[in-house]
């Protein structure tokens, strides 16, 4: 029975993109004066669902009620009119505008254009919630957390009754997160409905009143936060109790394969995104890299792969099998130089279709992305890649209509199988993976874990950048924690605890034994 205390209610919402079903028959409601956590793994359809409320997408089927009235939200404009505000994960800001101009874009229709008034109102909001925001600063000069602050001020300025925040804490420091949570509680006290999309369990438990869980596009159920605990939420999120049971063979005869010393990388905005990181990676072990996303993981792997310019003084050395006393320096080498030097370095990047694969090409053509240049003939050889593609398709069970079907048309799991398959086929000495199981279903994830363990047994030095601490703790032998671009300790994955890793991800105090 609908009830006026519901700010918004979704009934039987379905949304598809081509062949992909993003949401299927989802029914969900949000109450006034509550903070609802929308919990789910990557790719479970949380953002798509909220985008339908915000007017970005239009549902294929189903009804949306605001208050007690059935509404049609055809555009963000409609959503704003209904008092729905959303802070998107990818900022909706105009780079060349100042903060003030960005806020002015959100004025009510018909309101008189008066920048002075906008300024004083924006100032008032900043003061009320304790935000430090320079209204005359251009967005392109802002840090991510400043941009996030601006997004929040924008929504508050517009005065939404229903506020949706999509992974707002991903780029925030703990202090900033705390400040944001205070704002959210404030809004709740004002009788507003607040939805926070997240997959971080501790945040869910800290901030929300109720948790609604999505799994693979479908609604699983909801639970009052006071009755919830991490194990229970995880189970609802992934479907069964997480007996990860990945299996972790002991490293056999570990040999140093990669040695990184004083690695620093300067970001495009001038600050250091990687700051004096040092570690070794050994053959026959899996080195995990933990950290909140955006803390230098991407730059670290790209620097090793030759895709990132390193600052002076950095050393990256590769120790080839049989030549352990004669390391090769990777600094200043392009990916092609590395390959030409006979170094078997495989890299599964985070951005699968934007970096690891060419979306518009089929499996065959993607197989030769790194090897097309071999031989002296000006003609590409497609025979070998085709055989390799066929092999990978069979061994990893890639579901595709054909070897020439553009890989962008495959599902996420199959895309990753193609990418990982290719990188493993290059018989790596060092294998780096970034978020290798992000957005994949459990089965495919286990396939990937299994493949990594196989490589480990073969004596490959595996570097695994991950976000799920449970997996890191069960899969890896050692874990390097990155925090703010700095190495914040290397832990023995067999003995350390989740709390220890989590603490080091957010807190730089543990400056003691940076090298294990």
């Amino acid at each position, binding site marked *: 029975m609908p009830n006026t205390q519901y700010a918004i209610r979704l009934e039987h919402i379905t949304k598809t993109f081509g062949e992909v079903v993003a949401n299927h028959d989802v029914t969900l409601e949000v109450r006034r004066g509550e903070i609802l956590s929308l919990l789910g793994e990557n790719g479970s359809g949380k953002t798509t669902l909220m985008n339908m409320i915000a007017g970005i997408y239009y549902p294929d089927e189903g009804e949306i009620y605001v208050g007690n009235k059935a509404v049609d939200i055809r555009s963000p404009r409609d959503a704003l009119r209904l008092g729905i505000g959303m802070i998107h994960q990818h900022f909706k800001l105009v780079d060349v*505008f100042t903060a003030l101009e960005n806020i002015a874009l959100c004025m009510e229709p018909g309101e008189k254009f008066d920048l002075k008034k906008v300024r004083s109102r924006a100032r008032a909001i900043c003061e009320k919630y304790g935000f430090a925001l320079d209204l005359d600063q251009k967005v392109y000069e802002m840090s991510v957390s400043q941009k996030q602050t601006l997004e929040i001020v924008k929504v508050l300025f517009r005065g939404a009754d229903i506020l949706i925040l999509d992974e707002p804490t991903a780029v925030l420091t703990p202090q900033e997160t705390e400040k944001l949570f205070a704002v959210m509680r404030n809004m709740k006290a004002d009788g507003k409905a607040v939805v926070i999309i997240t997959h971080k369990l501790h945040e869910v438990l800290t901030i929300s009143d109720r948790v609604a869980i999505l799994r693979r596009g479908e609604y699983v159920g909801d639970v009052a936060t006071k009755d919830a605990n991490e194990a229970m939420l995880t189970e609802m999120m992934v479907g069964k109790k997480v007996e990860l049971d990945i299996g972790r063979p002991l490293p056999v005869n570990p040999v140093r394969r990669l040695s990184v010393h004083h690695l620093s990388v300067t970001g495009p905005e001038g600050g250091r995104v990687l700051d004096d990181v040092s570690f070794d990676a050994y053959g026959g072990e899996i080195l995990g890299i933990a950290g909140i996303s955006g803390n230098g993981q991407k730059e670290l792997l790209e620097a090793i792969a030759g895709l990132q310019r390193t600052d002076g003084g950095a050393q990256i050395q590769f120790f080839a099998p049989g030549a352990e006393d004669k390391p090769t320096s990777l600094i200043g080498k392009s990916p092609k130089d590395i390959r030409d030097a006979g170094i078997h370095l495989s890299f599964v990047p985070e951005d699968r279709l934007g970096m690891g694969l060419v979306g518009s090409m089929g499996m065959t053509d993607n197989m030769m992305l790194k090897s097309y240049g071999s031989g002296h003939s000006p003609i590409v050889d497609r025979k070998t890649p085709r055989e390799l593609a066929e092999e990978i398709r069979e061994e990893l069970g890639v579901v595709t209509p054909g070897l020439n079907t553009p890989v962008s048309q495959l599902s996420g799991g199959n895309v990753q199988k193609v990418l990982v398959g290719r990188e493993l086929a290059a018989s790596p000495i060092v294998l780096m993976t970034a978020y290798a199981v992000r957005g994949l279903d459990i089965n495919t994830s286990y396939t990937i874990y299994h493949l990594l363990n196989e490589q480990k047994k073969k004596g490959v030095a595996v570097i695994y950048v991950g976000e799920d601490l449970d997996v890191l703790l069960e899969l890896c032998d050692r874990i390097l924690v990155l925090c703010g671009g700095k190495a914040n300790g290397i832990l023995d994955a067999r003995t350390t605890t989740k709390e220890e890793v989590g603490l080091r991800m957010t807190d730089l105090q543990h400056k003691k034994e940076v090298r294990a």
Partner: protein
Amino acid sequence: MSSLIAWIMRAIPFGTIIMYGAMGETITEKSGNLNLGVPGIMYLGGFAGFASAYYYENSVENPIPLLSIVIALVCALVASALGGLIYAFLTITLRANQNVTGLALTTFGMGVANFFGVFILDGATYSAAPVANKAFAAKIPVLSQMGVLGQTVFSYGFLAYAAIVLAIVLHWFFNRTRAGLNLRAVGENPATADAAGINVTKYKYLATCVGAAICGVGGLYYVLDYNQGIWATTGQIEALGWLALALVIFTTWKPLNAIWGAYLFGILYWLYQFLPSMLGITVSSAMTDLVQMVPYVVTILVLIAVSMRRKKEDQPPAHLGLAYFREER
């Protein structure tokens, strides 16, 4: 001295033509649409303005100059806005490629103007609309008599001054009004504008059609004022259209820069004729051909300088040339 005055008196009307083209295209580009159909649109505007004035003059006994101005202006604005509408429908609603659509529009606009132009010419090499020309080219009565100043500053038709006013208005519009702010947001980041509740499609359509209409005034000015009210089958307008596109880059998408930029282009364009005589040298006609490239070379240099400096404020609108589809993933 007298040749300097003559030079300026040539450069300013020339600049006025491309100033209209550039200002129209600036409005269009601010919405993220790169319309390479400017030459075609200038043809449409120029021809519609001329044809309507011509028929008006030849169908009444005593044509009223003011009415001839109104008729020509309205027809030029409508015809060129319609040209813009074709482009807008194809690129915004049907998401066709902007570059290719613009080039097709240039072909089409030139075709329409010259095809129907031939009917008016009816075998002659040119035809004229003297009344309209007189009305459009009327100098400012008293001020234009005031010596050098009068000659160089006050001796042009009213559209030359209207262009300056329009540049100032546009500057104010882009920077001081809500619609201007919204328009710029659409061209920079349509997804952001959309999420803020701005009707992206409406802004793009309006900017493209209004922009095209203003481009068309450039064509009108060329035919009825600059070219002394004479229509002839010519490729001249096309070259002016491309020069207007160049001027947009030269101004780094800022209307106020169009004022001096346009006149500078005019000076550069007529350099070959006046500079040698001012310096008292004779230059072979081959050299004068070569000098004609100067405005384009200057534009290229600006383009390079802007890309090297990477100053955000001087860049083209970030979403220029791209179609927007809200449900894109």
